[in-house]
């Protein structure tokens, strides 16, 4: 390229930019008042909490909106050395599964607990896609409180969507597989005959949040992608998008994209509940882990459960219906009134909108296709269809709602967000995303009462948006102001992992419920030391228990002798502080482990197996006071069989 050509191109570019200051159409990327709309002054709070999937990091991130500030990363499915999650003896059971300890997962979607169809700020549910799991995070502590594994499943993608009062959170298998058990060793090419889909209905205790695998629906072998529960009049129904209705088992890229239409599966979950109550389900022997964290003992336990109740949908003619939906539907979103169900066929050039009333009329009139699909009735497309949005964009994925009669759909292939009217199905606005948007989120945009105001696009590819950082670049979120007729891009910020779905609620719903300390008098940990008088070192055979306390700024005891090679040492560290935001950390040289981060009033345990003789420093890792650097001590390790007795102390004590 010659210098002249570059100059000409640059001149052209600057002219374009200059003219773009004038109000124009969709090309006007960033508004002049963007900074003012997203600026949150130092010392001020954000308007919203935003819970964002951490994707293949396995964690859940929490952002403030509109600033885009990262407030917290909550460890869920992946071990997190910063917080000792999955490393401390107390948290290891949380990552247990029927396969043993699995310290990673692929966290996809986020669902807040709801009351009357609106987020209530009690819990957040998230799914693990790889070793199928469902987790509950307590919004009082911002900690993972419970994880349940899902039997008969593989790739828990169609999850964790919930009903209007969080009666159930669902978990639909992405990969159909042969049901668990001794008959599951089958040739892969017998997919059509032997592979099944399973949708788990996990009930939620409305007071404690406790999860229970209430029942599963056994379906034909297809891939379940996403889901939404009905609202208002459609309260009793759940809608699941499915692809690979071709039932292909190889080269899915081609072979699962052959049919002109796949399905949205409509499930009458109230009826399923009745059948289960009436004992119509079949009990199947399975094995799955159910892990719970007990706040009183500050310790998790993992229980292996052995049975699940299964309803085969083909055996109940009024339970499940398929609705044809073009082409490989991904999103399947229900508007705030509960009447409209938007299917987003990711390979389709249009957006179908189905009508709940028409679906009910079609069922009553038996407007079905002549042939069932694997024993399940298929409603005629036209009989369920409200209408189609024509030429909306390329690669529609997800739709959220603003509560003013508008829908917003993300388009992966054409990298844009498109606003359209639900009633007349007309496109109202389109704005580019940078680039390849996946999910999008409007605060409350999946609920009966959207909060509106903002839309956030979660993008898969961010080439050139930020300073380059080698071959891998951060994913991005982009914040749009949707309070006017036209969407306006106002902020662009990086996210951790790959952001899939997210949800957001006004800060007021959550911020005043925060637990600031654990009450040390309520500590029921079996190895607690409530006060330095209880600090001690106890040998039991080759196991050494150290009851250690922390307070600004010393460890008690801080000199320990009598540990021998071959011992397993457990440091049970109790933080005696009762002041907000004063955790202490604990680390020891050479531990094949992480640090501990102990909250005020909490006891946490680090296991250490010394591998050599010598003297090993221990210290506080979290800067706690002016004398933090002094908060340290020594552990002496002697040869096996040494006559050095167990001694411990602090100062002259």
């Amino acid at each position: 390229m010659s210098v002249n050509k570059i100059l000409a191109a640059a001149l052209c570019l600057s002219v374009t930019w200059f003219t773009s200051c004038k109000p124009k159409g969709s090309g006007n990327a960033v508004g002049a008042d963007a900074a003012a709309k997203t600026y949150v002054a130092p010392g001020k709070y954000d308007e919203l909490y935003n819970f964002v999937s951490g994707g293949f990091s396995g964690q859940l991130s929490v952002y403030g909106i509109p600033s885009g500030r990262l407030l917290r990363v909550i460890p869920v499915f992946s071990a997190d050395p910063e917080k000792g999650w999955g490393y401390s003896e107390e948290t290891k059971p949380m990552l247990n599964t029927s396969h043993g300890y699995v310290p990673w997962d692929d966290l996809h979607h986020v669902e807040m607990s709801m009351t009357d169809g609106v987020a209530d700020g009690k819990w957040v549910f998230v799914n693990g896609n790889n070793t199928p799991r469902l987790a509950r995070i307590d919004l009082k502590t911002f900690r993972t409180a419970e994880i349940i594994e899902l039997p008969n499943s593989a790739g828990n993608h169609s999850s964790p969507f919930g009903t209007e009062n969080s009666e159930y959170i669902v978990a639909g298998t992405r990969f159909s597989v042969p049901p668990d058990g001794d008959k599951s060793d089958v040739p892969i090419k017998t997919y059509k005959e032997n592979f099944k889909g399973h949708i788990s209905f996990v009930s939620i205790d409305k007071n404690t949040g406790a999860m229970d695998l209430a029942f599963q629906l056994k379906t034909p072998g297809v891939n379940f992608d996403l889901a939404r529960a009905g609202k208002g009049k459609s309260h009793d129904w759940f809608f699941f998008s499915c692809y690979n209705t071709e039932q292909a088992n190889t080269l899915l890229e081609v072979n699962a994209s052959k049919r002109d239409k796949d399905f949205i599966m409509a499930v009458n979950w109230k009826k399923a509940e009745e059948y289960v109550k009436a004992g119509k389900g079949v009990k199947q022997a399975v094995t799955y882990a159910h892990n719970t964290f007990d706040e009183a003992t500050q310790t998790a336990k993992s229980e292996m459960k052995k049975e699940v109740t299964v309803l085969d949908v083909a055996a109940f003619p009024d339970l499940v219906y398929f609705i044809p939906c073009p082409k490989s539907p991904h999103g399947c979103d229900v508007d705030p009134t509960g009447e409209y169900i938007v299917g987003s066929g990711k390979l389709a050039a249009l957006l179908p909108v189905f009508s709940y009333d028409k679906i009910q009329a079609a069922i009553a009139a038996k407007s079905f296709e002549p042939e069932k699909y694997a024993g399940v009735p298929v409603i005629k497309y036209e009989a369920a269809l409200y209408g189609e949005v024509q030429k909306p964009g390329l690669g529609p994925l997800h739709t959220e709602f603003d509560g003013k009669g508008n829908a917003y759909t993300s388009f992966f292939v054409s990298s844009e967000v498109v606003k359209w009217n639900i009633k007349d199905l007309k496109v109202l606005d389109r704005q580019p995303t940078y680039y390849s948007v996946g999910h999008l989120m409007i605060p409350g945009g999946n609920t009966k009462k959207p909060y509106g105001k903002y839309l956030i696009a979660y993008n898969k590819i961010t080439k050139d948006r930020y300073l380059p950082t080698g071959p891998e670049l951060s994913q991005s979120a982009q914040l749009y102001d949707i309070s006017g007729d036209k969407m306006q891009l106002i902020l662009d910020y990086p996210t951790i992992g790959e952001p899939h779905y997210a949800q957001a609620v006004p800060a007021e719903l959550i911020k005043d419920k925060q637990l600031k300390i654990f009450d040390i008098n309520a500590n029921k940990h079996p190895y607690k030391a409530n006060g330095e008088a209880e600090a001690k070192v106890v040998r039991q055979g080759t196991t050494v228990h150290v009851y250690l306390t922390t307070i600004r700024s010393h460890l008690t005891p801080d000199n320990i002798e009598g540990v021998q090679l071959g011992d397993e040492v457990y440091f049970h560290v109790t933080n005696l502080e009762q002041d907000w935001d004063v955790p202490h950390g604990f680390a020891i040289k050479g531990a094949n482990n992480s640090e501990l981060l102990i909250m005020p009033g909490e006891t946490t345990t680090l296991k250490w197996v010394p591998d050599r003789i010598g003297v090993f420093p221990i210290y506080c890792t979290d800067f706690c006071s002016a004398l933090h650097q002094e908060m340290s001590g020594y552990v002496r390790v002697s040869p096996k069989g040494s006559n050095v007795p167990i001694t411990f102390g602090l100062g002259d004590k």
Partner: protein
Amino acid sequence: MKKSSLAAITLSVAMCLLIACGGGSSHKEQKSATTNTPSEEPAAANPSYDPKRGEGKFDESNVKVGPLNTAMAAKGKTTAETKCFSCHKTSAEKLVGPGWKGVTARKTPHWIMNFVTNPDPMIDKDPEVQAQLEICLVRMPNQNLTEDEARNILEFMRQNDGAK
């Protein structure tokens, strides 16, 4: 001249143009947002702070001491073992914080109640506590004592000082 620097110059020209025409309203709003600086309060000049009473819920009317209540003192000692003795000795000797011996002679009962339940503002305002901080260098943590716990600890301090 290299191609890249040409491009950079042109880019900066373009940026200037963009800013020149687009900056108006946001500049104004940002300015108003930053003028709101908090006024600085010198810690020593607190005319409203009463060093005899401290700051908090307690005063002469709601903290009464009488003959020693040994049951309360025993409860106070138990709480102190969990929440206080990491840093305080019952003798006059300093550990992290000052020893407790004689504290009930130096301070009024309601000052002690205020300080143990509400240390942060008092560490900022009380001249004697500030002098103590220069010696100890560790701010006394708020140990979230309930009113009953604080009252029992006061009773234990009185017992420790020989009250009958």
